[in-house]
């Protein structure tokens, strides 16, 4: 090669940490720019928290309504980002060939999945900060240790991510959109988020208690409202969902 032109080949992958950081930043920007996503992840949890804390719509039992609601809304925030939002976004990325195109870029697949997880975690941190500030303004007085809360949030994120990616990687994008919203709505009502599980019949309670959203919201409530230690039964339920969901997603996810 005697001369060097503009396009003279000089191939090479960027360092993998830089690729993942860039990918996570882009995914987070896409998420925060999307109006429908913000409705799910920010507007609905905030409205529910404010509305149900201030107006006596549902009987939330003894004590301040916000002490019951705040843990449930935190669980809802995790579900909205890790499950609903991630399923819809990934479903459309698959549909529009984004996953396909990225698969031929230097970014390895595990790097893409890591970046997605980072993006979900960053969004959740922003949600938790926002909702915590609002809850405090509404008179929230949380108890319990931060370690147990963190453990619940991380395992909940893993469980919901697995289920969201399973849906995104197997269904058509439109079906994912519809199903993810429907599941969001059903779990919002039946998962102990704003309606206490005790309101349901006994038989239903034992089944509903095995849902990931119920395990997360009840676990967070045990710690934050009742000052419990580490809620092992709920963590166990979330761990099983995480293993099943992520395992099935890894097995059945189709990239195009």
């Amino acid at each position, binding site marked *: 090669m005697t001369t060097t032109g503009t396009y003279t080949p000089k191939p090479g992958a960027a360092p993998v940490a830089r690729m993942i950081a860039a990918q996570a930043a882009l995914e987070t920007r896409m998420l925060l720019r999307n109006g429908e996503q913000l409705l799910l992840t920010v507007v609905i949890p905030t409205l529910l928290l404010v509305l149900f804390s201030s107006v006596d719509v549902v009987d939330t039992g003894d004590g301040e309504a916000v002490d019951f609601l705040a843990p449930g809304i935190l669980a809802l925030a995790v579900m909205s980002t890790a499950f609903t939002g991630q399923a819809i976004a990934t479903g459309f990325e698959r549909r529009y060939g984004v996953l*396909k195109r990225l698969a031929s870029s230097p970014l390895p697949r595990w790097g893409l999945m890591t970046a997605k997880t980072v993006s979900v975690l960053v969004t959740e941190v922003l949600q938790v900060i926002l909702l915590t500030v609002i809850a405090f303004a509404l008179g929230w007085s949380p108890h319990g240790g931060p370690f147990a809360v963190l453990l619940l949030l991380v395992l909940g994120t893993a469980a919901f991510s697995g289920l969201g990616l399973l849906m995104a990687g197997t269904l058509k994008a439109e079906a994912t959109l519809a199903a993810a919203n429907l599941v969001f709505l059903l779990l919002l009502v039946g998962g102990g988020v704003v309606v206490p599980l005790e309101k349901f019949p006994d038989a239903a309670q034992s089944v509903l208690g095995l849902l990931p959203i119920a395990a997360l919201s009840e676990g967070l409530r045990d710690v934050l409202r009742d000052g419990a230690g580490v809620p092992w039964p709920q963590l166990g339920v979330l761990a099983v969902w995480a293993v099943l969901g992520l395992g099935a997603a890894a097995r059945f996810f189709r990239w195009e």
Partner: protein
Amino acid sequence: MRSEPVVQVAALVKRYGTKTAVDGLDLVAGEGVTAVLGPNGAGKTTTIETCEGYRRPDAGTVRVLGLDPVRDSAALRPRVGVMLQSGGVYSGARADEMLRHVARLHAHPLDVDALIERLGLGGCGRTSYRRLSGGQQQRLALAMAVVGRPELVFLDEPTAGLDPQARRATWDLVRDLRADGVSVVLTTHYMDEAEQLADDVAIIDAGRVVAQGSPEELCRGGAENTLRFTGRPGLDVGALLKALPADCTAAELTPGAYRVTGKIDPQLLATVTSWCAQHGVMPDRISVERHTLEDVFLELTGKELRS
């Protein structure tokens, strides 16, 4: 020159269910520009996507830069640029944002601003991908394929649906890539594109390569050529035919418009003009029609419409 071909496909078979998309295809692409031509459904995209590592061959072997596209994917991906037939960009991303992102995945990317300027993507501004015109989306996909300074780029129908200006811009970029030592494999069903750009053309039909060679070789080979002239109506074409070599034909298509087919060489041209001179005919508008790639293509792949 590199000793091994850039792309080497041998006896490739790829089926989707009961349908055989690629049926024992052999293709060798060297340095420079290789165009893969074929009607819809011929197996162009399947072949390219197998080379890109998206599909596993059901039989046969594929080597790209000497590597296996599936097994050696990690080593190959930084060295190869890919332009998909459509999509590949977040619907909410802006053109420059997506291009900068792909650049960040590479160690020595091109200057993104210069590339945006070069491909006329500067006017996209803050418009998200889904609201870009089809031509802008195509040019962005092209830019994404080259921004990582690859050794080889695969372009799947790079100018489909482009206006003439955008098409020229794409052609110019392909020529510059070639001049700077980047190998290009592109699919197209535009004959002029293959004629303009390609060092080598492979014509694919029904999952097989039916002809391969430079555009000149393909146009020269086999097919008959045509000589036309106009003159006084009612010339004795039978007499003209007697003066010509045995395998020629001569006919008066419309009054005063004559056509001679056969192997048109300087000798035959001289024979026709001297016959005209002997008969006091001034052959107006004499023309020799070389076969175009389109003629060769239609001859090889048939004229009926494909689904």
